[in-house]
């Protein structure tokens, strides 16, 4: 595994922050000039783009912050996995990634190029979501199936699913799966225009929640088949997954939460688990009025007794296209260390649901973790990781 987020530049650093309750959301934004730097809290990764370029020894032109964050996390994962260059370049190794922002983090350059105000910045082929994985493929000379998914906030959960399916259906022997997104003026203004950003640090599942905080980050995981894991370090098993659609509204979930309910139910079914066997849910829990209430209702519909749950977005902010993968890593950390991380700053339950998330760090038996990601366009995905 490899991860970079507002709470750490590595799995170990992220883990430490999760255990110690160290929030990464701050009012110290300095990636690019924006009116909102002073006004809103963000989950910014604590390395500047210039420093990322240096640290990663990247000298190619046209490499965006999004690609750099991805490379950082991928490097960590490759080191952790000890994957040989030959295996990495094998046609049997797939790369299933995700991004919603792509190179649009360079909002000003995009504006200039799109309106022909320049002779062309170095980024004219770097704006789309695919640019990240195109870069990673080139950087590592990868020869298997390469893909990028964009289903908004559920993107990297879907890329994890896609990688697993490629392996299951004989298109790949192993799959590098994950996603990335970096903070961008484009998304800051987009979410702000929808009135779903909070001017305070987010409080998922709280009665007084006021919205989400945007974050950035990247995470990659290596999926291997059961027959190939002998002698290797194994963190967890991906035992279930499901993608369903709410089919209700472009940017909010239905009151009954059909999409979330169906994705959670489907993941359980695939895992062959009953609802009662889920130890913990890493919820989508963005801190918006709509998501948290609907997700709660869907949990109440599905689970006779809702298991322990929490949202780690209170630590990192909402990392959009990276969320599914970052939270997959956190779910796996829960399994490895048999612990649950709290929903920071939670005070009072939503009156209509009465559900109380985990409020402080605790050790607990964790056998199966469900991780939810629900996005614009009604795209709902749930993953289940199990202890090995």
């Amino acid at each position, binding site marked *: 595994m490899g991860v970079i987020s507002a709470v750490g530049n590595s799995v170990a650093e992220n883990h430490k922050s999760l255990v110690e309750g160290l929030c990464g959301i701050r009012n110290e934004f300095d990636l690019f000039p924006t009116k909102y730097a002073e006004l809103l809290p963000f989950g910014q990764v604590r390395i500047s783009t210039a420093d990322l370029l240096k640290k990663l020894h990247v000298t190619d032109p046209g490499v965006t912050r999004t690609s750099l964050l991805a490379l950082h996390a991928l490097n960590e994962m490759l080191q952790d996995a000890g994957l040989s260059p030959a295996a990495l370049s094998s046609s049997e190794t797939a790369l299933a990634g995700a991004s919603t922002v792509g190179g649009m983090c360079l909002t000003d350059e995009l504006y200039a190029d799109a309106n022909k105000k320049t002779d062309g910045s170095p980024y004219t082929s770097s704006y789309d979501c695919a640019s990240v994985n195109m870069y990673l493929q080139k950087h590592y000379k990868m020869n298997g199936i390469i893909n990028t998914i964009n289903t908004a906030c559920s993107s990297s959960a879907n890329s994890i699913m896609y990688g697993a399916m490629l392996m299951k259906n004989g298109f790949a022997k192993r799959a590098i799966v994950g996603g990335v997104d970096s903070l961008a003026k484009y998304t800051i203004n987009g979410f702000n*225009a*929808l*009135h779903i950003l909070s001017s305070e640090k987010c409080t998922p599942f709280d009665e007084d929640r006021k919205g989400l905080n945007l974050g950035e980050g990247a995470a990659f995981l290596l999926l291997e088949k059961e027959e190939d894991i002998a002698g290797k370090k194994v963190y967890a098993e991906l035992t279930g997954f499901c993608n369903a659609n709410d089919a209700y*509204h*472009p*940017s*909010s979930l239905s009151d009954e939460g059909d999409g979330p309910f169906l994705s959670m139910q489907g993941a359980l079914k695939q895992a062959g688990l009953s609802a009662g066997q889920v130890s913990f849910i890493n919820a989508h829990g963005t801190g918006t009025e709509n998501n948290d209430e609907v997700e709660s209702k869907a949990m109440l519909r599905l689970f006779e007794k809702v298991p322990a749950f929490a949202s780690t977005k209170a630590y990192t902010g909402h990392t959009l296209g990276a969320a599914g993968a970052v939270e997959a890593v956190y779910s796996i950390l829960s399994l490895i260390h048999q612990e649950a991380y709290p929903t920071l700053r939670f005070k009072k339950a939503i009156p209509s649901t009465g559900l109380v998330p985990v409020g402080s760090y605790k050790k607990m038996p964790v056998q199966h973790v469900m991780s939810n990601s629900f996005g614009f366009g009604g795209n709902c995905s749930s993953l289940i990781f199990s202890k090995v």
Partner: protein
Amino acid sequence: METAELKKQLKQQIVQFLNLTSVNPDDIKDDEPLFGEGLGLDSIDSIELIVLLSREYGIDIKDPKEGRKILVDINTMAAYIEQHRTK
């Protein structure tokens, strides 16, 4: 500006701003609900109408929920504009 003229202008602005290409502004009744039935607008439209009120009439509505109370129909919108416009 007379109320009748304001309402006529408002209907045209709404149709243009929300790109309601199949709607003739003059066909919108003054008391026809904007949301739900009637014109059938949704929550994204309510935010867009708040933007319209700001850009065209200098009216600042901070909370979309407050906005829904004003954006009931053309009558309520026009009344609110007359009271609060700064442009």
